[in-house]
């Protein structure tokens, strides 16, 4: 398998605070790669640097061998990297179908010139297929603001899918969901990879989800990588257990 995303010697400092120091890892095509760590470990910072919201202080990020670090977040977005947010952005007054259509429209009409040169692009087929994939086809005409929280999160994933990404960055996709919704989300994440061929980078606190979904996991503590490996490897690593999970922690 070839490499989708490569992060090399990444450092991010905010003034005197080092949020990420010397982070190096590579994510293969069609891999589900998890990032875990205690609160304040710098997971979200790492995410934001990869997505281009912050510029790295040092180090580089490569997407399929091409350097993307230093690009702005919208440039990275146009190169096939999509992300989902903890707080889902929706057009609350609009229907599910319109939300999906708008995500594709905002993405393809990324500037005024593109807007006038790409009119009339048909996205209805895509709305159909994405909603079917997510199992929300029966909700297409429902107002997004009235959806239950679990469905809103699914719709957020759908909006990212409308941009046809290669790499999907997911920021705590199951935070705030109930246990059955969490299981459904875990299945959905695996289907994103198995059926759509996406590569997924996942930041998540929910250990059962991370351990059952991810192929490999990066553990960071205070911005520094502790270890990288399979769920089994991470769970047996004593330094991880001591530093992060706590002595009494039991994996579900």
């Amino acid at each position, binding site marked *: 398998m070839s490499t989708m995303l490569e992060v090399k010697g990444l450092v991010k400092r905010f003034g005197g605070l080092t949020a990420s120091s010397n982070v190096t890892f590579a994510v293969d095509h069609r891999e589900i790669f998890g990032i875990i760590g205690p609160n304040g470990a710098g997971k979200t910072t790492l995410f934001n640097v990869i997505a281009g919201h912050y510029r790295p202080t040092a180090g580089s990020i490569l997407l399929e061998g091409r350097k993307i670090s230093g690009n*702005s977040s*919208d440039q990275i*977005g146009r190169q096939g990297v*999509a992300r989902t947010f903890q707080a889902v952005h929706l057009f609350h007054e609009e229907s599910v179908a319109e939300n999906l259509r708008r995500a594709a429209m905002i993405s393809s009409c*990324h500037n005024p*010139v593109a*807007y006038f040169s790409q009119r009339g692009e048909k996205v209805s087929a895509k709305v159909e297929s994405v909603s079917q994939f997510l199992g929300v086809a029966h909700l297409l005409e429902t107002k997004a603001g009235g959806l239950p929280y679990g469905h809103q999160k699914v719709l957020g994933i759908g*909006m990212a899918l409308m941009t046809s990404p290669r790499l999907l960055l997911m920021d705590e996709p199951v935070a705030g969901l109930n246990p059955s919704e969490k299981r459904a989300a875990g299945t959905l994440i695996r289907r994103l990879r198995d059926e759509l061929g996406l590569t997924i980078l996942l930041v998540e606190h929910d250990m059962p989800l991370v351990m059952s979904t991810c192929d490999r996991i990066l553990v960071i503590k205070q911005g520094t990588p502790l270890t990288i490996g399979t769920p089994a490897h991470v769970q047996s690593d004593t330094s991880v257990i001591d530093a992060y999970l706590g002595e009494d922690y039991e994996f579900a």
Partner: protein
Amino acid sequence: MRKGLLAGLLVLIAAAPWIVKSGYVFHIATMIALTIPLALSINLTLKLDQLSLAQPAFMGIGAYTAALLTMRLGVSPSLAVLAGGLLAVVISAVFGPIFLRIKGVYFVLLTYAFGQIVNLVFQEWTSLFGGNNGLYGIPRFSIFSHSFGETEYYILGLAVAALFFFVMYAIERSDVGAIFQALNEDEMFCRSIGSNAQSWRVAAFIMSAFMAGIAGALYAFYIGFISPDSFGFGATIDLIVINVIGGPGSVFGPIIGTIVVVPLLEFLREMRQYQFLVYGFCLVFFIMFFRQGLVSIFERKREVV
């Protein structure tokens, strides 16, 4: 939105000068028509959550460009109006990308400073702009040496106001409106799916400058006299009050606001010192009790979910 009622009312107001045959009404109606593009121009910047205080400066750029081109170079007024709009476009295209790197109150301050600097240039470069005495003797507007009378000029003003209104209406109703809304609500999300937020903001800023520049040029030909005073901070306040009273959320808001505020300004002309008192009360009242502005009268109440 009770659009039928509103549209009928607007047509009636536009026709008022022919119903009430009075020169004064004609003048006020023309001033309303010439102010609408300005009110819309500041509304366009508000649509991107940025309050620009530079619009009267672009109006002045349009006005002085048009006046000087006709007076000094004998350019025909219709071309001069276009040139006025285009120079505003060029200048906004240079400064917009710089200003729009900054958001919120600092953008407001930057555009304020820009407006003041432009005004100072009008005041101090006396050989070109005539200083505080301004420029007078601007010829009447004409097309193919046909000089426009009051009625014709009013119709021209109405046509330009209507044109910009429909452009803004189309923006609001189209996907561009949806893009603006999304950029305001969650820029990070829009950028994550590839939207170049800055390019949209710059485009809107340039469009707003174009509207202001055209309005300024038309104003110059109508009044026949321009001075830096007409394009100063006071004019900015007028435009903000118009938007607050009319309602900044809808494209109809600035229209209604202009129809209310411009006559008010004319009536208060004799007692200029009370103008800001009235403004103050209006702003407090509308911001505290009537946030959506007068336009909300014509909007159907949202169903309670």
